[in-house]
């Protein structure tokens, strides 16, 4: 295995969490060099670098020194260097670190596209459960170096028997009206959470809403969230 590690690394991509970019050279120059270090001849390296930089959304900026880039652009260069040599598997460590919400959404879209359309397997390491939920197919939870949970993401975000109700005003009256119909509603942040025992309770909720004239904003089944894993409430 140690003797084969060089060959394995030729087909591996890695995007570290920490800063790993030189400041003095342009993204184009840096990518061309990195593609060559991955074993691709110089004649092909420049084309690969240009292609992948366009793919991650860096067009004209690629001729500016990396030192002048914003955090979002640096993250794109980091992602580009991990994909430029057409790896079989890519390891991404906190790829959305330091990005603003729209930059984060762009980055996740790019990662999803890379994984689903281009057939590159991606291992994403993240503490942001929202990122994992919207991007990944499967999840592995590690704790102290051991796998504690694993499975499809959908398995971790199944629907529960709890219904969440958001209303504008008349909240207390609604709780009383529900209680009068034998439905217990507990306050859960801004929402009211109702444990459902039977289908008929939907009717009770409807009647209570009509009676109290509370304006309904949302009514939806509660899903397990990935953050529940950390609260040891997972499935």
């Amino acid at each position, binding site marked *: 295995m140690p003797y084969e590690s*060089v060959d394995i690394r030729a087909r591996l991509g890695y995007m570290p969490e920490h800063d*790993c970019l030189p400041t003095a050279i342009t993204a184009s120059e840096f990518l061309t060099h990195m593609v060559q270090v991955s074993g*691709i001849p110089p004649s092909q390296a420049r084309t690969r670098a240009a292609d992948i930089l366009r793919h991650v959304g860096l067009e004209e900026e690629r001729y500016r020194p990396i030192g002048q880039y914003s955090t979002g652009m640096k993250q794109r260069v980091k992602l580009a260097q991990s994909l430029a040599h057409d790896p079989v598997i890519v390891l991404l460590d906190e790829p959305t670190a330091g990005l603003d919400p729209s930059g984060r959404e762009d980055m996740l879209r790019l990662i999803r596209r890379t994984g689903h359309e281009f057939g590159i397997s991606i291992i994403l390491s993240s503490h942001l459960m929202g990122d994992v939920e919207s991007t990944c197919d499967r999840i592995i939870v590690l704790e102290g170096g051991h796998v504690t949970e694993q499975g499809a993401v959908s398995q971790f975000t199944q629907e529960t028997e709890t219904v969440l109700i958001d209303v504008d005003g008349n909240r207390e009256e609604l709780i009383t009206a529900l209680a009068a119909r034998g439905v217990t509603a507990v306050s859960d942040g801004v929402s009211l959470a109702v444990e459902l025992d039977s289908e008929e309770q939907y009717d009770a909720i409807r009647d209570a809403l009509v009676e109290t004239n509370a304006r309904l904003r949302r009514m939806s089944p509660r899903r397990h969230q990935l953050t529940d894993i950390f609260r040891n409430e997972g499935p």
Partner: protein
Amino acid sequence: MTQRTGELFDLGYQHYDGPREGRMRARKAVFFDGFRTTLGLGRGAGAKVLPMLLFGAAMAPAIIIALIVSLTNDLIDLPGHPEYYQVVSIVLLIFTAIIAPELLCADRRNGVISLYLVRPLSITDYVAARWLAFFAITLLLVYSGQIVLLAGLILSASDPVDYIRDNW
């Protein structure tokens, strides 16, 4: 109405099916990158100033000695190659003291080293390639001054062929 002259295609991601040359290509890439970094090639004008200054400082004594020899027509016993080294060694010292750390430390400071180590390259390959780049640059600096001096001395000698024969 404007005529459509071309169309844009979203080619998306292209897989690479070309040759992969592995470790040897990686070594070469690190070597040439070291060479280019030192000379400031592929970087802004600012990065080229220091290497050019030091290169100039190493060349100047060779040119001055050659000029003096040619102007004085060999009348006095003038400095030659050994004397050139005495003058230029301080420049070489400064040059090596600046470029050697820059070749290794910059990668660690920027964190680029972690990208090298996940590529088909061992740590020994990396250090060896960087060291060879350093060695090649130093050799170039040492010998280019000598060659300029030698050319100057040969051209200013009364009999260039004799000079070559005597000093071979």
